């Protein structure tokens, strides 16, 4: 009996590593996933190397610097801007700060915001969905009806409402509007993950391999975390990646409306919102943060679509 076991173990180990390799391989075969990863790579390196790429700080006002004027248009020496002027690839903003520096620092903030918000929403949503699906009955009913109510609002409208309410409540811990905005966006995103998780729990709960592990005496928590969760990972990862795009968009929209990040924070939405009346005289203050914002959202959208196409065989045409 020894030999077959070894062979089986061997095959199992090989299958495990090649499964991962297969998965990554099939994701990398998706054009959109690769495009998303490349874009994301550029954005992440820009965010990480912000301090190396520019000599200025995100809130540093260059009022005393020679040749730096308020609302100054981009000046790139390679593109014919005279060499005796200081170089500002994306120009200067309404407080004579370097836009390029602020864009790079904005990338840090947006990436952190996107990951943190979706992270919170996934953890809470997954737990809610798992318990609703596992317990069933009236708990399931009540919890999922609450999720229905949250889904019945247009997302941004509910986010605005929650953010203004949380702001007005004056909760001691929640004084930073950006944190409030993230919390509101996270709460609004919870139902999506709760639904995904609950659906997985319901479809997997009665499968033979789960019954088998139950018969072997595995605990409920063990079944949940070792049997059900791994099987729910694919839709959670897809939803989560697309969710980061939504979260970045919504934080930017809230900041644009004055409900999220406050000046002088280098946040793309707030950068655009502060100067929206200057669009006709200093368009570079809108266009560069706008492009950065759109490309980040695009990167996560492409990546999410690519992962879905790679991992969901029903879509492979």
């Amino acid at each position: 009996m020894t030999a077959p076991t070894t062979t089986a173990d061997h095959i199992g180990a090989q299958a495990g590593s090649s499964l991962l390799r297969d998965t990554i391989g099939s994701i990398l075969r998706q054009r959109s996933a690769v495009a998303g990863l490349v874009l994301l790579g550029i954005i992440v390196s820009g965010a990480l190397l912000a301090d190396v790429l520019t000599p200025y700080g995100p809130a540093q006002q260059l009022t005393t610097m020679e040749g730096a004027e308020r609302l100054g248009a981009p000046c790139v020496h390679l593109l014919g801007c005279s060499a005796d002027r200081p170089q500002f690839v994306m120009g200067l903003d309404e407080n004579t700060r370097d836009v390029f520096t602020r864009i790079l620092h904005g990338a840090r903030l947006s990436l952190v915001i996107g990951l943190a918000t979706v992270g919170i929403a996934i953890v809470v949503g997954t737990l809610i969905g798992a318990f609703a699906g596992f317990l069933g009955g009236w708990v399931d009913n009540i919890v999922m009806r609450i999720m229905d109510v949250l889904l019945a609002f247009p997302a941004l409208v509910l986010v605005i409402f929650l953010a203004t309410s949380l702001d007005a409540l004056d909760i001691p811990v929640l004084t930073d509007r950006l944190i409030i905005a993230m919390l509101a966006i996270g709460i609004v995103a919870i139902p999506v993950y709760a639904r995904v998780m609950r659906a997985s729990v319901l479809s997997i709960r009665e499968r033979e391999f789960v019954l088998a592990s139950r018969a072997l005496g595995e605990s409920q928590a063990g079944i949940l975390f070792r049997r059900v969760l791994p099987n729910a990972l694919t839709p959670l990862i897809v939803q989560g990646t697309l969710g980061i795009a939504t979260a970045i968009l919504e934080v930017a929209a809230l900041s644009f409306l004055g409900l999220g990040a406050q000046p002088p924070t280098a946040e793309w939405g707030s950068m655009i919102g502060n100067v929206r009346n200057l669009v006709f005289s200093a368009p570079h203050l809108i266009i560069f943060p706008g492009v950065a914002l759109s490309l980040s959202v695009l990167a996560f959208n492409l990546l999410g679509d690519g992962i879905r196409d790679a991992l969901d065989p029903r879509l492979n045409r």
Partner: protein
Amino acid sequence: MLAFIGRRLLLTIPVVFGIILLVFTLTRLLPGDPCIAALQERATPALCEAFRQRFGLDEPIPVQFVSYLGDLATGNLGRSIQQGRDVSQIIVERLPVTLELTLFALTFATVTGVLLGRLAARRRNSPADVATMMLANLGVSIPVFVLGLVLAYFFAVVLRGSPLSLPPSGLLSPGMRHEDLAIAWGMQGVVGFPRAVMDFVSNMTIISALISGQWEALLDGLRHIILPMVALGTIPMAIIARMTRSSMLDVLGLDYIRTARAKGASERLVIGRHAFRNALLPVVTVIGLSLGALLSGAVLTETIFRLPGVGSALFEAIGSRDYIVVQAFTLVTALVYVTINLIVDLSYAYLDPRIRLR
């Protein structure tokens, strides 16, 4: 069908109840004494006591909730702290602008999205398909406020003086005359509900200009709505294009399409008559869902293009921390959204009998 409508209505009731309960709860949690908000410097303790009794604020919370439901049923949404006017009055004044904008954006999104999606599916993997899908990916990724500002800059500044330039703000050019319907139709004497309806429609500039034959105002209004319409409609357009494409591809792979081709039907007939109609079904759902994006996006679009709709009223209310207005608008928007989705669901069931028989 009737049974289906009944079932669907019953499912909506708890959701609507939940929406109202959520808004009510958060409203009551908020600090700020409504008495002081309403009476301001005249608020003495004795007056406030009388005020609370009069408005039932000393009643237990469940009683308050019931009277809140009663208020809603009679259209009483509270009073704006900032403007000192009834919120329902503000909504009636401003809703027409938002409705008109949403209608135009939805039409733009649906027509363009369906045409692009159909084109992409018919020429699958052709350059046209790739270009359309790249456009759609970009379209869902550009925030409404960025697209709006860039469009405003491009059409108002870059193209200034050319015949393609478009106005970046407002409903009509300054000085452009636009008569109310009651005046245009010589019905100033009409009062009551018919007059209210006329005044409501009058605030939809383009539609009222069209039905009362004010051609100059109509043209001017159309020129003003193009940019906000495109800014607001692009995200739903992209979603609809993607949905139409994948739905068309699904249908084109079915047996009856092969049968139609086998019996010698022309490609035009196969696509236009057989495939397209059935492919539209999932698109209907997406159109309903994209209304959420439209209602959300209206806040940003109206702010950028200075349109006096409920969205810009919400923006002003956020700025002045006028919570009553924010809550009322949230409630009204959510109820509009739920109603529209109900209608979409019902029309879906009407279009596809399999749904209601399930």
